[in-house]
């Protein structure tokens, strides 16, 4: 609220003009009011967090500040001066730099080419490239932003790609740096490094705006925090004077349980037994290098790891649709029966009939058909069930009835089964997928990134349903890159790195630090040998949990 925002600006130690001041910014996309009468004041030389659920309008607001969208109404002041930011060039000239959530890099360009793109000094490239090389060296020294300038982007890790984005902004002499969900793709260690960089930038007098939905990050690094809800700025407070619980409540508009309330697991017989699973993809890359684990009835096994370490392949293989051309070996037992790995009975439909439900990692590609209505999406994967048939035709009435019921159960909003999947928010899309899989009462539920891009209210809800499924004596395999999610939901945690399981831990006997090291491929015995070496000794922690190393 405006009054709350004034509170920060009014303090005597921040008498100088704010680096950024927004007054009454509004922006609508068609009927959707993304930003409504937003006021914001960001004092110079501070790290300012902007927190809010998905679709709260954080990214839209920052895109307006960066000249990517034009506001319908409102005023922007940069260092006390009113400015019309009609395009990104104006924003860049005003000293504003932005690191988008999805990097805006040209994959097959070198780092250097990406840095100078749009900021060249003349019609010829050679002098610009030479200059950028020098500047880059200096920036690397000043801020620990080391990147090889001649590497192409596709060869770089995501962490390094993000550094390139930050370097791009600094090369354009940005004084105000906006970062949109910067840690979503990083390991804990990379995120820590990023925060050190940001603190270094702050020490140099730069202003940083950090958009995130992670309360922990806000508490850890920001000076002030503004909370957005449904397109409005609901509060601006000093970070030191607030708490995660208060922020969560402001974001959602009601009390939120940050801790998942769950009873100890009561594991029964093994439901899924995986032994020595290997997968080589069609390009000859070993994605899975001998994965073995069990999941018992009534237990959640969490698989932690930085994305791209084989989790996707594992889920796809268990779900019955490994990438075409992959070579697969090993055994999967479901309720004691060996599952067909390669033959005609290895497809997703057969797996579903065996009682394996699957909430895929990328709901928009694998989980839903975005242009189909919600009720049609509810039938996918189960469309051949007898109750959905009426002779040669589909029994649409039966499907619609189920869809209505599921949407009721899972509180999907708006509760309109005829609406195309595209028109639901991320959280509600995910609820549709989770509802479809959980309502069939599977013996085993595979869940990939259940809360990626999902707002905090829906996260709470989805987590609760997953725990309920476990308590009903079902097995759950949870794959997530969010360590907090893994730690709070899992009964056991396995960490994947480079196609292997680095070790198993119990959530109450480990720390993010320890898991972070495993995620980076470091075990107590040192880093893993590479592909040619002997496989590392696996930690058998199922019955004999390891303490901290």
């Amino acid at each position, binding site marked *: 609220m405006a009054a709350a925002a004034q509170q920060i600006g009014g303090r005597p130690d921040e008498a100088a003009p704010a680096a950024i001041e927004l007054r009454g910014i509004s922006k609508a996309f068609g009927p959707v009011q993304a930003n409504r009468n937003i006021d914001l004041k960001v004092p110079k030389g501070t790290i300012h967090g902007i927190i809010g659920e998905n679709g709260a309008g954080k990214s839209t607001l920052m895109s307006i500040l960066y*000249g990517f969208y034009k506001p319908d109404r409102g005023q922007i002041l940069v260092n006390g001066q009113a400015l019309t930011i009609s395009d990104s060039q104006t924003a860049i000239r005003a000293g504003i730099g932005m690191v988008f959530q*999805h990097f805006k890099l040209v994959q*097959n360009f070198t780092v250097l080419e990406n840095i100078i*793109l*749009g*900021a060249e000094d003349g019609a010829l490239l050679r002098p610009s490239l030479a200059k950028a090389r020098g500047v880059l060296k200096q920036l690397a020294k000043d801020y620990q932003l080391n990147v090889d300038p001649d590497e192409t982007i596709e060869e770089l890790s995501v962490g390094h790609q993000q550094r390139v984005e930050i370097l*791009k902004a600094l090369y354009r002499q940005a004084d105000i740096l906006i970062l949109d969900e910067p840690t979503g793709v990083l390991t804990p260690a990379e995120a820590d490094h990023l925060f050190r960089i940001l603190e270094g930038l702050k020490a140099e007098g730069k202003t940083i705006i950090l958009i995130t939905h992670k309360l922990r990050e806000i508490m850890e690094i920001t000076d002030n925090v503004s909370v957005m809800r449904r397109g409005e700025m609901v509060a601006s407070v000093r970070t030191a004077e607030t708490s995660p619980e208060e922020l969560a409540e402001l974001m959602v508009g009601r009390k939120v349980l940050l801790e998942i309330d769950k009873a100890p697991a009561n594991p029964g017989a093994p439901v899924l037994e995986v032994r020595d699973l290997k997968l080589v993809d069609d390009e000859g890359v070993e994605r899975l290098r001998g994965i073995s684990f069990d999941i018992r009835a009534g237990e959640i096994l969490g698989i932690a790891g930085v994305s791209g370490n084989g989790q996707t392949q594992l889920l796809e293989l268990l779900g019955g649709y490994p990438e075409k051309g992959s070579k697969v070996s090993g055994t999967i037992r479901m309720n004691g029966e060996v599952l067909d790995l390669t033959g005609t009975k290895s497809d997703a439909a057969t797996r579903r009939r065996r009682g394996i439900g699957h909430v895929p990692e990328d709901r928009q590609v694998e989980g839903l058909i975005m242009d189909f209505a919600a009720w049609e999406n509810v039938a996918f994967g189960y469309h051949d069930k007898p109750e959905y048939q009426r002779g040669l035709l589909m029994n649409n009435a039966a499907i619609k009835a189920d869809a209505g019921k599921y949407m009721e159960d899972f509180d999907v909003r708006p509760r309109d089964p005829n609406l195309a999947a595209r028109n639901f928010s991320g959280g509600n899309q995910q609820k549709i997928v989770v509802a479809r899989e959980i309502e069939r009462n599977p013996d085993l539920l595979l869940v990939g990134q259940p809360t990626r891009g999902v707002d905090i209210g829906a996260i709470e809800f989805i987590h609760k349903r997953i725990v309920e499924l476990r308590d009903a004596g079902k097995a759950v395999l949870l794959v997530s890159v969010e360590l907090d999610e893994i730690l709070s939901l899992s009964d056991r945690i396995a960490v994947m790195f480079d196609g292997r399981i680095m070790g198993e831990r119990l959530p109450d006997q480990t720390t993010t630090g320890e898991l972070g090291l495993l995620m980076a491929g470091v075990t107590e015995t040192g880093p893993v040998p590479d592909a040619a070496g002997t496989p590392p000794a696996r930690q058998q922690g199922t019955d004999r949990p390891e303490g901290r190393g």
Partner: protein
Amino acid sequence: MDFATAIQILDSAVRLMTPLLLACLAGLYSERSGVFDIGLEGKMLMAAFTSAAVAFVTGSPWLGLLAGIAGSMALSLIHGLASITFMGNQLISGVAINFLASGMTVLLGQKIFGLGGRTPSLTGGGRFGEITLPFADSLRNVPFIGPIYADLISGHTILVYVAFLCVPLTWWVLFRTRFGLRLRAVGENPASVDTAGVSVTRLRFAAIAICGILCGLAGAYLATGLSAGFVKEMTAGRGFIALAALIFAKWRPWNALFATFLFGLLEAIANRYPNLEIGPITIPSMFMNALPYILTVIILAGFVGRAIPPRAGGEPYVKER
């Protein structure tokens, strides 16, 4: 086959590859910027007609050339308007342009000249003359080098030399200039250009304008250099062959030179040996004439290894919401 015959075939290949090379480079600019262009054929055809018509009326191939560029450019702008400004489907827009050119040229030709869609034959000054390079005649008798210089390198029209010069020029523009960097970037990831504060629309229009100019050159060369006047459908699929060559060349200018040379050579061989006899077998002329098209199919079927097109190709740029 003796040396003189080889020179003759190569000389013919150079002439025949020229329109392909120009069209291929035209497509290269457009597609590198992320705008697929299957309308090369139509643009070339339109340019061939307008250049032949104007060259006949004015007697000047240069005015004809300008008219050719204007005709092709007009279609380029339609393509740009449809696929960049209004974010339409680039393939459909390209197909429409091909149909438009195919019908318009014949209609206008009949209306203006009444020759069943042809333009009257160009004589003397209406065509581009062959340029004899310095010392061509005096060097002709030097063994080996002489004939190559006098018969293969010398004695083409200005547009042939322009086409060949466009290859290093395109390479230089693409990889050594600011414009080239932005052009390649906009074809790979337009958002990267947009967030850098550079207009995606302007860049893409610049690219299709260059495409229009080069297609204009190609069409003008067909009608006023290679032959003497316009005849119905005279491009004969060259625009599509140029597209195949572009894929074969993996969107690189020097590769485009070799790819189009291969097609030109096949056509030249087919012209020279209508019935090729290899030992007891006689390969019929129909097969020889079909060779460039067969090669096109083989190339497009992916027998040349993986060619990765510009990543943002074919997609109109919409700011994500």
